[in-house]
Protein backbone atom coordinates (compact mmCIF):
# COMPACT_ATOMS: atom_id res chain seq x y z
CA UNK A 1 0.00 0.00 0.00
CA UNK A 2 2.83 2.35 0.93
CA UNK A 3 4.51 1.60 -2.39
CA UNK A 4 1.23 1.70 -4.32
CA UNK A 5 0.67 5.31 -3.22
CA UNK A 6 3.81 6.26 -5.14
CA UNK A 7 2.17 5.34 -8.46
CA UNK A 8 -0.69 7.74 -7.84
CA UNK A 9 1.46 10.74 -7.00
CA UNK A 10 2.96 13.27 -9.40
CA UNK A 11 6.71 13.94 -9.57
CA UNK A 12 6.74 16.68 -6.95
CA UNK A 13 4.61 14.74 -4.50
CA UNK A 14 6.61 11.60 -5.13
CA UNK A 15 9.72 13.49 -4.10
CA UNK A 16 8.10 14.72 -0.89
CA UNK A 17 6.72 11.26 -0.23
CA UNK A 18 10.14 9.61 -0.66
CA UNK A 19 11.80 11.99 1.74
CA UNK A 20 9.03 11.46 4.25
CA UNK A 21 9.53 7.69 4.03
CA UNK A 22 13.26 8.17 4.60
CA UNK A 23 12.61 10.35 7.64
CA UNK A 24 10.31 7.66 9.02
CA UNK A 25 13.07 5.08 8.43
CA UNK A 26 15.57 7.27 10.27
CA UNK A 27 13.16 8.07 13.10
CA UNK A 28 12.28 4.46 13.90
CA UNK A 29 15.99 3.61 13.94
CA UNK A 30 16.77 6.56 16.18
CA UNK A 31 13.85 5.61 18.39
CA UNK A 32 15.45 2.23 18.99
CA UNK A 33 18.70 3.87 20.01
CA UNK A 34 17.28 6.77 22.02
CA UNK A 35 13.81 5.66 23.05
CA UNK A 36 14.41 1.96 23.68
CA UNK A 37 18.10 1.80 24.56
CA UNK A 38 18.24 5.25 26.19
CA UNK A 39 21.33 6.48 24.37
CA UNK A 40 21.38 10.17 23.57
CA UNK A 41 23.22 10.30 20.28
CA UNK A 42 23.50 13.14 17.77
CA UNK A 43 25.26 11.23 15.04
CA UNK A 44 22.30 9.30 13.61
CA UNK A 45 21.83 11.74 10.76
CA UNK A 46 25.59 11.89 10.17
CA UNK A 47 25.51 8.12 9.56
CA UNK A 48 22.77 8.75 7.01
CA UNK A 49 25.26 11.07 5.33
CA UNK A 50 28.15 8.63 5.72
CA UNK A 51 26.03 5.96 3.99
CA UNK A 52 25.05 8.34 1.18
CA UNK A 53 28.55 9.68 0.54
CA UNK A 54 30.17 6.24 0.89
CA UNK A 55 28.04 4.62 -1.75
CA UNK A 56 28.44 7.54 -4.17
CA UNK A 57 32.22 7.76 -3.69
CA UNK A 58 32.63 4.00 -3.99
CA UNK A 59 30.51 3.82 -7.13
CA UNK A 60 31.73 6.85 -9.03
CA UNK A 61 35.18 7.61 -7.66
CA UNK A 62 36.46 4.08 -7.14
CA UNK A 63 34.16 2.44 -9.70
CA UNK A 64 33.15 -0.38 -7.37
CA UNK A 65 30.16 -2.49 -8.54
CA UNK A 66 26.86 -1.64 -6.79
CA UNK A 67 26.41 -4.72 -4.55
CA UNK A 68 29.99 -4.41 -3.29
CA UNK A 69 29.56 -0.65 -2.81
CA UNK A 70 26.52 -1.31 -0.60
CA UNK A 71 28.38 -3.89 1.50
CA UNK A 72 31.44 -1.63 1.84
CA UNK A 73 29.21 1.35 2.67
CA UNK A 74 27.65 -0.60 5.53
CA UNK A 75 31.13 -1.66 6.63
CA UNK A 76 32.25 2.00 6.75
CA UNK A 77 29.25 2.85 8.99
CA UNK A 78 29.96 -0.12 11.27
CA UNK A 79 33.64 0.77 11.66
CA UNK A 80 32.92 4.45 12.39
CA UNK A 81 30.11 3.50 14.81
CA UNK A 82 32.37 1.10 16.72
CA UNK A 83 35.13 3.69 16.86
CA UNK A 84 32.75 6.17 18.50
CA UNK A 85 30.72 3.79 20.67
CA UNK A 86 33.42 1.63 22.24
CA UNK A 87 35.38 4.43 23.92
CA UNK A 88 32.32 6.53 24.85
CA UNK A 89 30.21 3.77 26.43
CA UNK A 90 33.09 3.02 28.76
CA UNK A 91 32.57 6.49 30.17
CA UNK A 92 29.54 7.49 32.19
CA UNK A 93 26.66 9.78 31.40
CA UNK A 94 26.55 12.11 28.44
CA UNK A 95 29.93 11.31 26.93
CA UNK A 96 28.19 9.49 24.10
CA UNK A 97 26.16 12.64 23.41
CA UNK A 98 29.35 14.72 23.29
CA UNK A 99 31.28 12.22 21.18
CA UNK A 100 28.44 11.89 18.66
CA UNK A 101 27.98 15.66 18.55
CA UNK A 102 31.69 15.95 17.72
CA UNK A 103 31.35 13.24 15.08
CA UNK A 104 28.40 14.97 13.43
CA UNK A 105 30.34 18.26 13.29
CA UNK A 106 33.53 16.61 12.13
CA UNK A 107 31.66 14.81 9.36
CA UNK A 108 30.42 18.07 7.85
CA UNK A 109 33.91 19.59 8.12
CA UNK A 110 35.39 16.56 6.38
CA UNK A 111 32.83 16.80 3.60
CA UNK A 112 33.72 20.45 3.02
CA UNK A 113 37.46 19.81 3.15
CA UNK A 114 37.42 16.47 1.33
CA UNK A 115 38.66 17.93 -1.95
CA UNK A 116 38.19 15.78 -5.00
CA UNK A 117 36.83 12.78 -3.13
CA UNK A 118 33.85 14.46 -1.45
CA UNK A 119 33.56 17.27 -3.96
CA UNK A 120 34.11 19.90 -1.25
CA UNK A 121 31.36 22.44 -0.54
CA UNK A 122 29.55 21.66 -3.78
CA UNK A 123 29.36 17.95 -3.05
CA UNK A 124 28.86 15.39 -5.77
CA UNK A 125 26.14 15.61 -8.40
CA UNK A 126 25.17 14.42 -11.86
CA UNK A 127 25.41 10.73 -11.22
CA UNK A 128 22.74 8.09 -11.72
CA UNK A 129 21.86 4.83 -10.07
CA UNK A 130 23.48 2.00 -12.03
CA UNK A 131 21.05 -0.45 -13.61
CA UNK A 132 20.03 -3.34 -11.36
CA UNK A 133 19.69 -6.61 -13.33
CA UNK A 134 19.56 -4.46 -16.46
CA UNK A 135 16.66 -2.40 -15.10
CA UNK A 136 16.69 1.31 -14.36
CA UNK A 137 14.88 1.98 -11.09
CA UNK A 138 13.03 5.20 -11.69
CA UNK A 139 10.04 7.19 -10.54
CA UNK A 140 7.53 5.22 -8.48
CA UNK A 141 9.66 2.08 -8.80
CA UNK A 142 12.45 3.74 -6.92
CA UNK A 143 9.91 4.84 -4.31
CA UNK A 144 9.04 1.14 -3.98
CA UNK A 145 12.73 0.50 -3.18
CA UNK A 146 12.50 3.08 -0.40
CA UNK A 147 9.34 1.47 0.93
CA UNK A 148 11.18 -1.87 0.91
CA UNK A 149 14.08 -0.41 2.91
CA UNK A 150 11.65 1.16 5.38
CA UNK A 151 9.77 -2.11 5.86
CA UNK A 152 12.98 -4.12 6.26
CA UNK A 153 14.26 -1.60 8.81
CA UNK A 154 10.97 -1.80 10.68
CA UNK A 155 10.89 -5.62 10.56
CA UNK A 156 14.45 -5.81 11.91
CA UNK A 157 13.83 -3.33 14.72
CA UNK A 158 10.51 -4.88 15.66
CA UNK A 159 12.04 -8.35 15.82
CA UNK A 160 14.88 -7.03 17.99
CA UNK A 161 12.47 -5.13 20.20
CA UNK A 162 10.40 -8.25 20.87
CA UNK A 163 13.43 -10.37 21.69
CA UNK A 164 15.77 -10.75 24.65
CA UNK A 165 17.93 -8.11 23.00
CA UNK A 166 15.18 -5.48 23.07
CA UNK A 167 14.48 -6.29 26.70
CA UNK A 168 18.17 -5.99 27.49
CA UNK A 169 18.21 -2.56 25.80
CA UNK A 170 15.23 -1.38 27.86
CA UNK A 171 16.79 -2.80 31.02
CA UNK A 172 20.02 -0.90 30.29
CA UNK A 173 17.97 2.26 29.75
CA UNK A 174 15.86 1.85 32.91
CA UNK A 175 18.46 0.68 35.40
CA UNK A 176 21.98 -0.21 34.24
CA UNK A 177 23.06 -1.54 37.64
CA UNK A 178 20.14 -3.94 37.90
CA UNK A 179 20.65 -4.92 34.25
CA UNK A 180 24.26 -5.88 34.99
CA UNK A 181 23.15 -7.86 38.04
CA UNK A 182 20.87 -9.88 35.73
CA UNK A 183 23.85 -10.84 33.59
CA UNK A 184 23.53 -8.19 30.90
CA UNK A 185 26.80 -6.83 29.56
CA UNK A 186 25.75 -3.19 29.63
CA UNK A 187 28.61 -1.76 27.57
CA UNK A 188 28.29 -4.41 24.88
CA UNK A 189 24.53 -4.00 24.63
CA UNK A 190 24.97 -0.25 24.12
CA UNK A 191 27.69 -0.70 21.52
CA UNK A 192 25.64 -3.23 19.55
CA UNK A 193 22.50 -1.07 19.60
CA UNK A 194 24.48 1.99 18.54
CA UNK A 195 26.34 0.21 15.74
CA UNK A 196 23.26 -1.53 14.41
CA UNK A 197 21.04 1.55 14.32
CA UNK A 198 23.88 3.59 12.83
CA UNK A 199 24.32 1.01 10.07
CA UNK A 200 20.56 1.11 9.37
CA UNK A 201 20.79 4.90 9.09
CA UNK A 202 23.67 4.38 6.66
CA UNK A 203 21.53 2.10 4.49
CA UNK A 204 18.75 4.71 4.43
CA UNK A 205 21.40 7.25 3.39
CA UNK A 206 22.51 5.04 0.50
CA UNK A 207 18.95 5.01 -0.75
CA UNK A 208 18.72 8.75 -0.29
CA UNK A 209 21.80 9.28 -2.47
CA UNK A 210 19.67 8.44 -5.54
CA UNK A 211 16.61 10.45 -4.58
CA UNK A 212 18.06 13.81 -5.56
CA UNK A 213 21.11 12.36 -7.32
CA UNK A 214 23.24 14.81 -5.42
CA UNK A 215 24.97 14.79 -2.06
CA UNK A 216 26.41 17.93 -0.51
CA UNK A 217 27.41 19.11 2.98
CA UNK A 218 24.38 21.33 3.83
CA UNK A 219 22.03 18.34 3.44
CA UNK A 220 23.71 16.59 6.37
CA UNK A 221 23.91 19.51 8.79
CA UNK A 222 23.69 19.06 12.53
CA UNK A 223 20.20 20.59 12.81
CA UNK A 224 18.80 17.35 11.38
CA UNK A 225 20.10 15.44 14.40
CA UNK A 226 17.93 17.64 16.62
CA UNK A 227 14.98 17.31 14.28
CA UNK A 228 15.21 13.52 14.65
CA UNK A 229 15.25 13.87 18.43
CA UNK A 230 12.16 16.14 18.21
CA UNK A 231 10.36 13.65 15.99
CA UNK A 232 10.89 10.79 18.41
CA UNK A 233 9.95 12.82 21.51
CA UNK A 234 6.88 14.48 19.98
CA UNK A 235 5.66 11.18 18.51
CA UNK A 236 6.32 9.10 21.61
CA UNK A 237 9.74 7.90 22.65
CA UNK A 238 10.20 4.12 22.84
CA UNK A 239 7.38 3.28 20.43
CA UNK A 240 7.84 2.50 16.72
CA UNK A 241 4.44 3.94 15.80
CA UNK A 242 5.18 7.04 17.86
CA UNK A 243 8.44 7.68 16.06
CA UNK A 244 6.73 7.18 12.69
CA UNK A 245 3.91 9.61 13.57
CA UNK A 246 6.40 12.17 14.89
CA UNK A 247 8.47 11.89 11.71
CA UNK A 248 5.49 12.31 9.38
CA UNK A 249 4.11 15.23 11.36
CA UNK A 250 7.34 17.20 11.77
CA UNK A 251 8.37 16.49 8.18
CA UNK A 252 5.08 17.70 6.73
CA UNK A 253 4.53 20.57 9.15
CA UNK A 254 6.87 23.02 7.35
CA UNK A 255 4.97 22.43 4.10
CA UNK A 256 1.75 23.59 5.75
CA UNK A 257 3.28 26.24 7.95
CA UNK A 258 5.71 27.89 5.54
CA UNK A 259 2.99 29.62 3.49
CA UNK A 260 1.57 30.95 6.76
CA UNK A 261 4.59 31.85 8.87
CA UNK A 262 7.61 31.49 6.59
CA UNK A 263 10.73 30.26 8.34
CA UNK A 264 9.16 30.74 11.76
CA UNK A 265 7.98 27.13 11.64
CA UNK A 266 11.10 26.31 13.67
CA UNK A 267 9.47 28.30 16.48
CA UNK A 268 6.36 26.14 16.20
CA UNK A 269 8.60 23.06 16.50
CA UNK A 270 10.08 24.45 19.68
CA UNK A 271 6.64 25.05 21.16
CA UNK A 272 5.46 21.56 20.15
CA UNK A 273 8.55 20.06 21.70
CA UNK A 274 8.01 21.89 24.99
CA UNK A 275 4.32 20.98 24.98
CA UNK A 276 5.20 17.33 24.45
CA UNK A 277 7.73 17.27 27.29
CA UNK A 278 5.57 19.22 29.74
CA UNK A 279 2.07 17.98 28.92
CA UNK A 280 2.44 14.57 27.37
CA UNK A 281 5.81 12.91 27.97
CA UNK A 282 4.53 9.81 26.18
CA UNK A 283 4.06 11.88 23.04
CA UNK A 284 1.26 11.76 20.50
CA UNK A 285 1.12 7.98 20.72
CA UNK A 286 0.38 8.39 24.43
CA UNK A 287 -2.65 10.55 23.57
CA UNK A 288 -3.74 7.93 21.05
CA UNK A 289 -3.46 5.18 23.70
CA UNK A 290 -5.59 7.16 26.13
CA UNK A 291 -8.25 7.75 23.49
CA UNK A 292 -8.16 4.02 22.72
CA UNK A 293 -8.78 2.98 26.31
CA UNK A 294 -11.50 5.59 26.71
CA UNK A 295 -13.47 4.34 23.69
CA UNK A 296 -13.00 0.67 24.48
CA UNK A 297 -14.74 1.15 27.82
Amino acid at each position, binding site marked *: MLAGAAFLLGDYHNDVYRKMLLWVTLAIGYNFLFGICGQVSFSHFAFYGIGAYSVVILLFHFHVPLPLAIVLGVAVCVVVALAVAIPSTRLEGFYLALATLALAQLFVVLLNEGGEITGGTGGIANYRLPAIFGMQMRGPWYTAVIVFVLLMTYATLRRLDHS*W*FGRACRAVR*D*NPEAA*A*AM*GINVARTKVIAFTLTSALAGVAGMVYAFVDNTVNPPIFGLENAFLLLFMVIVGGSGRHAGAAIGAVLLFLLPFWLSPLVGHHHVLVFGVLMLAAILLQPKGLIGIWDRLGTRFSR
Partner: protein
Amino acid sequence: MSKRFGGLTAVSELDFEVREGEILGMIGPNGAGKSTTFNLIAGSYPASSGEVFFDQKPLLGLPPHRIAARGILRTFQHNRPFEGMPVIDNVLVGAHRSFGVDLFGRKSKNKEHEKRLRAEELIEFVGLGGMAQADVGTLSFGQGRLLEIARALAGEPRLILFDEPAAGLAPAELDRLAEIIRGIAARGIAVLLIEHDMHFLLPLAHRVVVLNFGAKIADGLPDDIRRNPAVMDAYLGSHAPHP
Protein backbone atom coordinates in the same frame (compact mmCIF):
# COMPACT_ATOMS: atom_id res chain seq x y z
CA MET B 1 38.53 -11.47 52.03
CA SER B 2 39.10 -7.87 53.02
CA LYS B 3 37.95 -4.48 51.82
CA ARG B 4 39.47 -1.15 52.70
CA PHE B 5 38.11 2.28 51.82
CA GLY B 6 41.08 4.61 52.22
CA GLY B 7 42.24 4.07 55.79
CA LEU B 8 39.01 2.39 56.89
CA THR B 9 38.86 -1.38 56.85
CA ALA B 10 35.21 -2.18 56.17
CA VAL B 11 35.64 -5.94 56.06
CA SER B 12 38.73 -7.66 57.39
CA GLU B 13 39.77 -11.25 56.79
CA LEU B 14 36.22 -12.47 56.61
CA ASP B 15 35.91 -16.18 55.91
CA PHE B 16 32.72 -18.17 55.38
CA GLU B 17 31.00 -20.58 53.00
CA VAL B 18 27.48 -21.31 51.71
CA ARG B 19 26.30 -24.73 50.50
CA GLU B 20 23.56 -25.82 48.11
CA GLY B 21 20.08 -25.69 49.61
CA GLU B 22 21.36 -23.87 52.66
CA ILE B 23 20.11 -20.56 53.98
CA LEU B 24 23.09 -18.74 55.39
CA GLY B 25 22.17 -15.65 57.31
CA MET B 26 24.58 -12.82 57.82
CA ILE B 27 23.72 -10.33 60.51
CA GLY B 28 25.37 -7.50 62.29
CA PRO B 29 24.60 -3.99 63.48
CA ASN B 30 24.71 -1.03 61.10
CA GLY B 31 28.18 -0.51 59.69
CA ALA B 32 29.26 -4.06 60.49
CA GLY B 33 30.29 -4.65 56.88
CA LYS B 34 27.29 -6.69 55.72
CA SER B 35 26.57 -4.62 52.65
CA THR B 36 30.23 -4.35 51.78
CA THR B 37 30.52 -8.13 51.92
CA PHE B 38 27.45 -8.40 49.74
CA ASN B 39 28.85 -5.99 47.17
CA LEU B 40 32.18 -7.80 47.13
CA ILE B 41 30.49 -11.07 46.19
CA ALA B 42 28.12 -9.43 43.69
CA GLY B 43 31.06 -7.68 42.03
CA SER B 44 29.92 -4.13 42.73
CA TYR B 45 33.13 -3.36 44.66
CA PRO B 46 36.57 -4.75 43.94
CA ALA B 47 38.08 -6.49 46.99
CA SER B 48 41.32 -5.23 48.50
CA SER B 49 42.56 -8.75 49.08
CA GLY B 50 41.29 -12.29 49.44
CA GLU B 51 39.43 -14.83 47.40
CA VAL B 52 35.87 -15.94 46.71
CA PHE B 53 35.37 -19.31 45.12
CA PHE B 54 32.19 -20.54 43.50
CA ASP B 55 32.31 -24.12 42.25
CA GLN B 56 36.06 -24.09 42.92
CA LYS B 57 36.50 -21.22 40.48
CA PRO B 58 37.61 -17.76 41.60
CA LEU B 59 34.96 -15.07 41.53
CA LEU B 60 36.61 -11.98 42.98
CA GLY B 61 37.36 -9.26 40.46
CA LEU B 62 34.73 -10.30 37.92
CA PRO B 63 32.27 -7.59 36.79
CA PRO B 64 28.64 -8.03 37.98
CA HIS B 65 27.31 -9.37 34.67
CA ARG B 66 29.90 -12.16 34.64
CA ILE B 67 29.10 -13.06 38.21
CA ALA B 68 25.43 -13.33 37.23
CA ALA B 69 26.47 -15.50 34.30
CA ARG B 70 28.04 -17.91 36.76
CA GLY B 71 24.68 -18.44 38.40
CA ILE B 72 24.80 -15.91 41.23
CA LEU B 73 21.81 -13.57 41.18
CA ARG B 74 20.83 -10.91 43.64
CA THR B 75 18.01 -8.72 44.85
CA PHE B 76 18.44 -5.07 45.75
CA GLN B 77 17.64 -3.58 49.13
CA HIS B 78 16.08 -0.58 47.42
CA ASN B 79 13.94 -2.17 44.72
CA ARG B 80 15.36 -1.56 41.28
CA PRO B 81 12.66 -2.50 38.79
CA PHE B 82 12.85 -1.73 35.07
CA GLU B 83 10.19 0.98 35.09
CA GLY B 84 9.35 0.97 31.41
CA MET B 85 8.29 -2.69 31.28
CA PRO B 86 5.41 -4.79 32.59
CA VAL B 87 6.02 -7.25 35.43
CA ILE B 88 6.58 -10.25 33.16
CA ASP B 89 9.21 -8.48 31.07
CA ASN B 90 11.04 -7.51 34.25
CA VAL B 91 11.15 -11.19 35.16
CA LEU B 92 12.23 -12.14 31.64
CA VAL B 93 15.21 -9.78 31.90
CA GLY B 94 16.33 -12.01 34.76
CA ALA B 95 16.39 -14.91 32.31
CA HIS B 96 18.65 -12.91 29.97
CA ARG B 97 21.58 -15.33 30.12
CA SER B 98 19.53 -18.33 29.08
CA PHE B 99 18.53 -16.95 25.69
CA GLY B 100 21.74 -17.60 23.77
CA VAL B 101 22.27 -15.43 20.72
CA ASP B 102 19.38 -16.55 18.48
CA LEU B 103 17.29 -13.61 17.41
CA PHE B 104 15.39 -14.81 14.40
CA GLY B 105 13.61 -17.99 13.44
CA ARG B 106 11.54 -20.67 15.11
CA LYS B 107 14.10 -21.64 17.73
CA SER B 108 14.20 -18.18 19.26
CA LYS B 109 10.38 -17.99 19.24
CA ASN B 110 10.10 -21.33 21.05
CA LYS B 111 12.66 -20.20 23.58
CA GLU B 112 10.78 -16.97 24.18
CA HIS B 113 7.54 -18.89 24.66
CA GLU B 114 9.16 -21.38 27.04
CA LYS B 115 10.76 -18.62 29.13
CA ARG B 116 7.51 -16.68 29.22
CA LEU B 117 5.69 -19.70 30.71
CA ARG B 118 8.49 -20.10 33.22
CA ALA B 119 8.30 -16.41 34.12
CA GLU B 120 4.56 -16.76 34.72
CA GLU B 121 5.23 -19.67 37.06
CA LEU B 122 7.74 -17.62 39.00
CA ILE B 123 5.36 -14.67 39.23
CA GLU B 124 2.83 -17.12 40.66
CA PHE B 125 5.45 -18.61 43.01
CA VAL B 126 6.30 -15.28 44.63
CA GLY B 127 2.61 -14.45 44.97
CA LEU B 128 2.14 -11.91 42.20
CA GLY B 129 -0.22 -14.18 40.26
CA GLY B 130 -2.46 -12.29 37.86
CA MET B 131 -0.14 -9.29 37.76
CA ALA B 132 2.08 -10.44 34.91
CA GLN B 133 0.95 -7.66 32.57
CA ALA B 134 0.75 -4.98 35.26
CA ASP B 135 2.88 -1.87 34.97
CA VAL B 136 5.63 -2.08 37.59
CA GLY B 137 4.75 1.46 38.67
CA THR B 138 1.46 0.12 40.09
CA LEU B 139 3.16 -2.34 42.47
CA SER B 140 3.38 -1.65 46.19
CA PHE B 141 6.82 -1.62 47.83
CA GLY B 142 6.29 -5.16 49.12
CA GLN B 143 5.17 -6.39 45.70
CA GLY B 144 8.22 -4.73 44.21
CA ARG B 145 10.38 -6.78 46.58
CA LEU B 146 8.62 -9.95 45.42
CA LEU B 147 9.27 -8.94 41.83
CA GLU B 148 12.98 -8.59 42.65
CA ILE B 149 12.92 -12.19 43.84
CA ALA B 150 11.05 -13.53 40.80
CA ARG B 151 13.46 -11.69 38.52
CA ALA B 152 16.50 -13.17 40.26
CA LEU B 153 14.96 -16.66 40.17
CA ALA B 154 14.35 -16.37 36.42
CA GLY B 155 18.12 -16.47 36.01
CA GLU B 156 18.09 -20.06 37.36
CA PRO B 157 20.54 -19.11 40.11
CA ARG B 158 22.64 -21.61 42.00
CA LEU B 159 23.31 -18.99 44.64
CA ILE B 160 20.90 -16.18 45.37
CA LEU B 161 21.95 -13.13 47.36
CA PHE B 162 19.33 -11.25 49.34
CA ASP B 163 20.28 -7.73 50.41
CA GLU B 164 18.15 -6.95 53.48
CA PRO B 165 14.95 -8.39 51.98
CA ALA B 166 12.91 -7.66 55.11
CA ALA B 167 13.66 -3.93 55.09
CA GLY B 168 10.50 -1.89 54.69
CA LEU B 169 8.06 -4.81 54.71
CA ALA B 170 4.94 -5.14 56.89
CA PRO B 171 4.74 -8.08 59.37
CA ALA B 172 2.28 -10.04 57.18
CA GLU B 173 4.60 -9.61 54.20
CA LEU B 174 7.53 -10.89 56.27
CA ASP B 175 5.84 -14.27 56.84
CA ARG B 176 5.20 -14.59 53.14
CA LEU B 177 8.83 -13.63 52.37
CA ALA B 178 10.20 -16.22 54.82
CA GLU B 179 8.03 -18.87 53.18
CA ILE B 180 9.32 -17.93 49.71
CA ILE B 181 12.95 -18.03 50.87
CA ARG B 182 12.44 -21.49 52.40
CA GLY B 183 10.86 -22.61 49.12
CA ILE B 184 13.92 -21.35 47.20
CA ALA B 185 16.35 -23.25 49.43
CA ALA B 186 14.16 -26.36 49.11
CA ARG B 187 14.87 -26.25 45.35
CA GLY B 188 18.54 -26.80 46.14
CA ILE B 189 19.57 -23.19 45.63
CA ALA B 190 22.14 -21.76 48.04
CA VAL B 191 20.81 -18.67 49.79
CA LEU B 192 22.93 -15.92 51.31
CA LEU B 193 20.73 -13.59 53.30
CA ILE B 194 22.11 -10.35 54.61
CA GLU B 195 19.78 -8.94 57.17
CA HIS B 196 19.58 -6.39 59.90
CA ASP B 197 16.44 -7.81 61.50
CA MET B 198 17.41 -10.68 63.85
CA HIS B 199 13.79 -11.61 64.57
CA PHE B 200 13.23 -12.26 60.89
CA LEU B 201 16.52 -14.00 60.23
CA LEU B 202 17.08 -16.34 63.18
CA PRO B 203 13.99 -18.55 62.67
CA LEU B 204 14.70 -18.72 58.94
CA ALA B 205 18.43 -19.32 58.60
CA HIS B 206 20.06 -22.74 58.79
CA ARG B 207 23.32 -21.17 59.83
CA VAL B 208 24.28 -17.65 60.84
CA VAL B 209 27.43 -15.57 60.52
CA VAL B 210 27.60 -12.50 62.74
CA LEU B 211 29.70 -9.51 61.74
CA ASN B 212 30.80 -6.60 63.83
CA PHE B 213 33.24 -3.88 62.79
CA GLY B 214 34.01 -5.78 59.62
CA ALA B 215 35.06 -8.99 61.34
CA LYS B 216 33.29 -12.27 62.00
CA ILE B 217 32.44 -12.57 65.69
CA ALA B 218 30.32 -15.72 65.54
CA ASP B 219 29.38 -18.50 63.13
CA GLY B 220 26.92 -21.24 64.02
CA LEU B 221 23.35 -22.48 64.36
CA PRO B 222 20.69 -19.84 65.06
CA ASP B 223 20.15 -21.23 68.58
CA ASP B 224 23.87 -20.92 69.39
CA ILE B 225 23.86 -17.37 68.07
CA ARG B 226 20.93 -16.45 70.33
CA ARG B 227 22.92 -17.61 73.35
CA ASN B 228 26.23 -16.07 72.28
CA PRO B 229 27.15 -13.23 74.64
CA ALA B 230 29.45 -11.56 72.09
CA VAL B 231 26.53 -11.28 69.66
CA MET B 232 24.22 -9.84 72.27
CA ASP B 233 26.90 -7.30 73.21
CA ALA B 234 27.33 -6.29 69.61
CA TYR B 235 23.61 -5.75 69.20
CA LEU B 236 23.02 -4.09 72.55
CA GLY B 237 26.27 -2.19 72.20
CA SER B 238 27.22 -2.55 75.88
CA HIS B 239 30.84 -3.41 75.21
CA ALA B 240 31.24 -1.73 71.88
CA PRO B 241 34.49 0.25 71.82
CA HIS B 242 34.00 3.96 71.39
CA PRO B 243 36.29 5.97 69.16
